[in-house]
């Protein structure tokens, strides 16, 4: 099957003279075969089964979807899931962008330290980090002690959406910084000097030269963070209250407590489709930088 696909691919005459594509026509396909196989068996197949069950349980029909859109709590939580994910993405971007820039601007030793600062928390389990946030954010926690010492009233952080966003942003920050860094390190900083020498103010040189060139990294990071955030489960469960429950918690309840695979599946499918729609809407944005010539 796969061998046949490779052969037919080789038989198609190359239309576009793109280096990478020409290379891909050869045996390079086999490089992705293990990953592809893993995806099909471990993701594609279960996904297909879950989708099927959302239409077939308890009987064939759309009853699970009718239920989903008929219960106000589901819609509230769906909306909230997207809102929290958007906030997390924004916070990660604001915190990650200058950090990634700094990584490109410093010497190799400092860069190593900065990379380690990003990666070391990445090696610690998300659950452990989330529990650490419980200690930090709780009413009698470290952050509130500092605020109280400064003479200000206690701030409600834990079991609020703010707390959830903070905790999730910390867990997801590496997924924003790493793509940003990988794009930024390819940007020639002399372009900024050129812009300055042609009379642009620093702000303008950034806005018109550096920022557009870094956008592919921004989009890649934002999309990864946003999509990962949509499926978050542990962090909102531990740091959040009822008003920050996300869809994954509801899915978990349907499947694990009620054994209602049909409804759980329908919720998963709705989340998946909503994500695809959003990505499709964002797609034109991500293509733009290619046209303006970011590839050197």
């Amino acid at each position, binding site marked *: 099957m796969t061998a046949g696909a490779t052969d037919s691919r080789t038989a198609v005459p190359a239309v576009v003279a793109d280096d990478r594509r020409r290379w891909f026509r050869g045996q390079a396909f086999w490089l992705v075969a293990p990953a592809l196989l893993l995806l099909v068996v471990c993701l594609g197949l279960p996904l297909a089964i879950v989708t099927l069950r959302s239409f077939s349980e308890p009987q064939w029909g759309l009853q699970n979807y009718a239920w989903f859109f008929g219960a106000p*709590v589901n819609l509230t939580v769906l909306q909230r899931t997207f809102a929290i994910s958007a906030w997390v993405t924004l916070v990660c971007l604001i915190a990650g962008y200058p950090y990634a820039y700094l990584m490109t601007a410093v010497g190799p030793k400092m860069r190593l330290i900065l990379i380690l600062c990003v990666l070391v928390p990445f090696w610690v389990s998300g659950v452990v980090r989330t529990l650490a946030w419980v200690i930090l954010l709780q009413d009698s926690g470290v952050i509130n002690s500092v605020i109280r010492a400064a003479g200000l009233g206690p701030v409600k952080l834990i079991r609020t959406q703010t707390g959830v966003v903070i905790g999730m942003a910390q867990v997801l920050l590496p997924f924003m910084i790493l793509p940003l860094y990988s794009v930024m390190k390819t940007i020639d900083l002399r372009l900024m000097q050129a812009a300055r020498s042609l009379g642009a103010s620093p702000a303008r040189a950034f806005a018109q030269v550096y920022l557009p060139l870094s956008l592919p990294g921004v989009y890649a990071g934002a999309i990864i963070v946003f999509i990962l955030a949509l499926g978050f489960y542990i962090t909102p469960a531990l740091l959040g209250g009822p008003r920050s429950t996300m869809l994954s918690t*509801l899915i978990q309840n349907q499947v694990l407590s009620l054994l209602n695979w049909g409804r759980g599946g329908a919720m998963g499918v709705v989340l998946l489709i909503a994500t695809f729609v959003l990505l499709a809407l964002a797609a034109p944005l991500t293509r733009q930088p290619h046209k303006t010539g970011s590839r050197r």
Partner: protein
Amino acid sequence: MKKIGQVTALGLLMITTAALAQSKPVAGEVAEGSLKDKTLTFVSYGGIYQDGQIAALKEFVDKSGVTLLSDGPTEISKLQAQVESGNVTWDVVDTGDFPPYVYCGKLFQKLDFSKIDTSNIPEGQISECSVPAMNYGVVLMYNTEKYKDNPPKSWGDFFDIEKFPGSRALEGSGDLSGGMVEQALLAAGGSVENMTVADIDKAIEKVKSLGPDTIFWKTGADSQQLAESGEADMIAMWTGRAMTAVKNGAAYTPAWQDWLVVMDQMTIPMGVKDPEAAHALINAYVGKSAQETLAKTTSYTPIHKDAKPEVDEVTAAFMTNTPDKLKLGYQQNIKFWVENFEVANEKWNALMAGN
């Protein structure tokens, strides 16, 4: 002298056991070498609890020659997948209170009580598909510094935010606690006899009336953290976690009135390869010394009436099988909750999701 007495007693017991092996089971006993070359997989919730259960079963393993494997945590959805695919690898499963009632005859087999000695298990805790695995409770813990002279005494006080101002925390780990909903209904002026589905709404309104700062803790550790940091003034807590919090210095005290009786359930899934061996495990598990080991290692209350585990003072204070505490205990209307499992869970989860 005492030692010799014990050995003689043990010898006598063994002889009797051997004689009775064919007829009537004795809790805690298993025939020597009877399960040699066999393997059983016991599934529970992990942590010290499952470690304690395995420790309680050591005698059984040593004597019967069985190879005991441990797996978990218990997830009914995983069990369902096993039963549906006809490949059941979990032989004995420790579950929550509802599943053996909801899925009796579907996921769990009806137990053969000619193979399990249930004579020492407290009244009203055995069902067609399960025997209790242990007992514990949900108890009202209150902050002694906050309510110095006027401590709350019952769930009625817990739900009375005017007479007892302060923040509340209750279980929000997923499944609803039927007993807690019933207490909320009572506090709302409802009646628990002939409860209807509409009463669930009434009870949930009462829970909502506790205010926006009410905490729904997700895990036992979570609730313990709330007590140790003093985050909530009254907390509905599992007795084991309440005990640990007190040991760690939390200034909280229990109000035992109507503490909610909870038990885990020992079950055998449909389609296990060796039901005989699975029954033998349960029969050994409900034995006196097994239950004492369990209580000693986990601080959960044993389900053998005569079990007297050697535990420290605080642990003993939170054991729920003493006559005085058994008198104050409150048993949920399990029949109602099983019949209305789905609708009740949906309403409860809407509350959990902030709606």
